């Protein structure tokens, strides 16, 4: 069997296992919706000004929730599921078979990427139906491309992160300790105000979270005249993704720590 067919076959089993754990599957999809509903309950759905004109706040929330969804699936979810599989000995078992390692990990990465993108589609559709979200059509290709680049970059970072997770019990703490502070300083849910220290903004500029968030905002802006593509942001994400891939190649462990 060719590598591509083995990868597709592995993805079928990933999907099967995901489907068999309905509680996990349900809450994976429910999570971003909670954000949209809770934001609307707390802040309302008033008219706000965004670059180019006025829209409702839900249209402003969607790209932030999209960024969070992609990070949650591709970075957090992937790093955790691999840590658990490694602690259970699944990875070591697979490493003793002729299955190419790229097919095994590639299936996990692609599956989580698809989950991330489906989450964004679900939350966008939900917002469109219930909160009058203004879904831009002209910038849709840019929005999808940004999602794909972000998903790939954060998946590579998730893979790299597993090298620094000592065991499955530590996985949630390690993974969240890195990503939660970044989400707060990266204009995802809370815009940094002028009174925040300058260095905090600069730290946010260095890491990829803000770049995903800003690129998605630009591509989800209904007043955007151009393609909505922000190549600078995509380049930063791609660089982080490449760095993550290198670390993963050098440091990835197939066995639990002894």
């Amino acid at each position, binding site marked *: *069997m060719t590598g591509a067919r083995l990868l597709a*076959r592995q993805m079928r*089993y990933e999907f099967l296992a995901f489907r068999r754990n309905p509680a996990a599957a349900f809450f994976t999809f429910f999570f971003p919706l909670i954000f949209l509903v809770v934001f609307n309950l707390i802040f309302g759905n008033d008219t706000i000004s965004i670059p180019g004109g006025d829209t409702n706040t839900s249209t402003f929330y969607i790209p932030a929730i999209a960024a969070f969804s992609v990070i949650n699936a591709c970075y957090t979810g992937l790093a955790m599921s691999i840590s658990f599989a490694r602690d*259970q000995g*699944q990875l070591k078992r697979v490493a*003793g*078979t002729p299955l190419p390692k790229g097919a095994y990990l590639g299936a996990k990465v692609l599956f989580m990427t698809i989950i991330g993108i489906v989450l964004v589609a679900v939350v966008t559709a939900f917002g469109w139906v219930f909160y009058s979200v203004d879904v831009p059509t002209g910038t849709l290709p840019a929005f999808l491309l940004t999602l794909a680049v972000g998903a790939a970059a954060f998946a590579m970072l998730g893979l790299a992160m597993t090298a620094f997770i000592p065991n499955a019990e530590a996985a949630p703490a390690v993974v969240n300790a890195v990503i939660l502070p970044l989400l707060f300083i990266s204009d995802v849910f809370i815009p940094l105000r002028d009174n925040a220290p300058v260095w905090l903004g600069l730290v946010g500029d260095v890491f990829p979270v803000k770049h995903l968030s800003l690129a998605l905002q630009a591509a989800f802006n209904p007043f955007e005249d151009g393609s909505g593509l922000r190549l600078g942001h995509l380049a930063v994400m791609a660089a982080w993704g490449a760095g993550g891939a290198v670390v993963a190649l050098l440091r990835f462990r197939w066995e639990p720590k002894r």
Partner: protein
Amino acid sequence: MSPGNDLAIQTQSLRKAYGAVEAVRGVDLAIGHGEVYALLGPNGAGKTTTVEILEGHRERDGGEVSVLGHDPARREPALLRRIGIVLQTPGVEPYLNVAEAIEQYRGFYPHPRPLDEIIEIVGLTEQRGQRIRKLSGGQQRRLDVAIALAGDPELLFLDEPTTGFDPAARRQAWDMVRNLRSSGATVLLTTHYMDEAEHLADRVGVIVDGAMVAEGTPEDLMASSPAAVVSFRLPPDHSHLLDGVEGARASGDGRYEVRTESPTALLHDLTGRALEAGSELAELRVERATLEDVYLDLTSEASS
């Protein structure tokens, strides 16, 4: 070393250290095709390290290794397609069912063994559609073997296949290994159960502190030891009769056992003492040492 075409597994002076601890200190193995070979030894003796080097999971520090003519450290797909590995603690996706998990692994191999055949060999026919997370410990272990059989391997590694099993589950596992043997596969198993090695293995290698201390068929190992066990019962107040008898120990309930390498002299001594004291060595028996006795001798000599 010539590529061991006539041997399934060959090692010379195999070495591996973890930091300052030498886990494997110059192990030589020569295991033929179709042979069931048991590596026997106490916990921490180096069994698993040896097997994991042969599987390709660990890199050796020194020595020569050939597994089906390959160097396992290179992890070549050509070798991985021909072997099956049962690790001590392998995991499997808990939400798949038994047939799905085996089927998933069958897809990794060019000539997989038929699914129904595998399920029958390991005795999971009734659990075929059951979710893996709902299997008992013994059933999960059989699934581990089933997955290792997916590629119809010529060589199967079984690392402590029955540790933690109840006696019935062990018997079933033994039957399973016998089935495998009759299908012509070479099996290398590790165990710290003597009876397991005795029942299953064509040959046994006893490994202590990273070195092989004895090797041969179970019969050879027993024959190599002159050891015998003399047992009898004494009245409660007659135990002083054994003062100065080397190797004597109470085995409870007024029974005593004396292990000896010269049973004739020991019997002469004991019967003399009993006659002198006017007491009887009730239920007197002289028995050949079991493999377990030989094993205990070997492991205590080697580590003392």
